[in-house]
């Protein structure tokens, strides 16, 4: 057995040749390298975390929508009629008095002031238009008075301050809606009071019916 054939294929070696011919089918054949697929499909990994992430987003959206609905509802519920001017508020009108003006020096020393009454106005030597205005109008005037610029900054010292007001016994100014609401309430109350009065009269024996009264509380 020659070693040359085994190493560099020179000479002859029938035993090796026989083995070669037997293993011919497994001989290496050089071919083109395999091509990459045209479309690469990534490997999908579904984890439980993604499942909860979906729910987390949906919950967040639902919660946001609910919050918006609640906010809008609350806004509509409580905003109605409260954005009106102070004169229309349900609170009774506060006394339109902040500071008494007794003389001109006080006015000069004060940037923001209002008048308490006519006497104070007369003492101050200021010009006043004596007109009757409603309570509501008076409140508006007070707001304007508070915004008056300092006396020193005005050259001619012409001060136009709040007007004399008479709050008492002035007719109430109502809009149509207010009038309607008021009429409805008065109608309801008058019917209610008349029916309650009827019961009271009956119970007190004004018309002598067979009446009984159960004192609840």
């Amino acid at each position, binding site marked *: 057995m020659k070693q040359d054939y085994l190493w560099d294929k020179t000479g002859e070696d029938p035993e090796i040749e026989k083995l070669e011919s037997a293993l011919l089918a497994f001989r290496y054949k050089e071919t083109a390298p395999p091509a990459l697929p045209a479309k690469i499909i990534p490997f999908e990994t579904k984890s439980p*975390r993604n499942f*909860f*992430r979906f*729910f*987390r987003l949906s919950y*967040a959206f*639902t*919660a946001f929508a*609910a*919050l918006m*609905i*609640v906010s809008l*509802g609350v806004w509509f519920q409580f905003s*109605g009629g409260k954005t009106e001017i102070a004169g*229309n508020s*349900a609170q*009774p009108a506060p006394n339109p008095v902040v500071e008494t003006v007794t003389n001109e020096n006080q006015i000069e020393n004060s940037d923001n002031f209002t008048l308490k009454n006519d006497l104070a106005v007369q003492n101050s030597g200021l010009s006043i238009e004596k007109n009757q205005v409603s*309570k*509501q109008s008076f409140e508006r005037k007070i707001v304007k008075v508070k915004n008056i610029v300092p006396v020193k900054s005005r050259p001619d010292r012409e001060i136009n301050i709040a007007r004399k007001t008479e709050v*008492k*016994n*002035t*007719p*109430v*100014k*109502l*809009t*149509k*809606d*207010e*009038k309607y*609401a*008021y009429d*409805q*309430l*008065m*109608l*309801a*109350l*008058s*019917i*209610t*009071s008349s*029916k*309650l*009065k*009827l*019961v*009271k009269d*009956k*119970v007190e024996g004004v*018309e002598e*019916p*067979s*009446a*009984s009264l*159960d*004192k*609840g*509380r």
Partner: protein
Amino acid sequence: MKSFIHSLKFILPVLFVLGAFISVNAQDPARLPFERLNGLETKARDVVEVNIDGKLLDLAKRVMVKTNDADAKKVAQAINGLKGIYVRVYNFEQENEYNIADVEAIRSQLQSPGWEKLANVRSKKNNQKVDVYTMFTGDVMSGVAVVVSEAKSIAVVNVIGPIDIDLLVELSGKLNIPKIEIEKDGTKTKIGN
């Protein structure tokens, strides 16, 4: 699972607020359903239907406060906590023109828990039946119901919220519309006494 619990921490307060909002807007237990009386409108000669609550009531309360009338001031005090008044009055041409079962249905609602009978009057004259019920939440009055049925008329009054009954009775007949001016397109129209 951790994120789910984290989501619940956010959702539960929102649901709580939502539930509170719904409960606030739920119908008041002192409110009587008047649906059964609706059928009487076609039979009655005169119908008075008043529903005043919410913004309309707030508006009326503000007018009350504005009014300089002494009685109106008293009324404003009496209805300070009022939430609503619902009135139905039906006057008929003939006697027994309505089905008494319709009124009894209202009376049977007043037998439910919460309502307490304050007074009842039964008179053979005009077949008159008057019932006054009150509802209290704790020590605060939460509703009043007055049901009056006569031969030719029915009146049902449902008041929601606290109200001074004695003061209302005292002011009976004095609840007129005071002198007022309506602002209409810059012009003023005088209405009332």
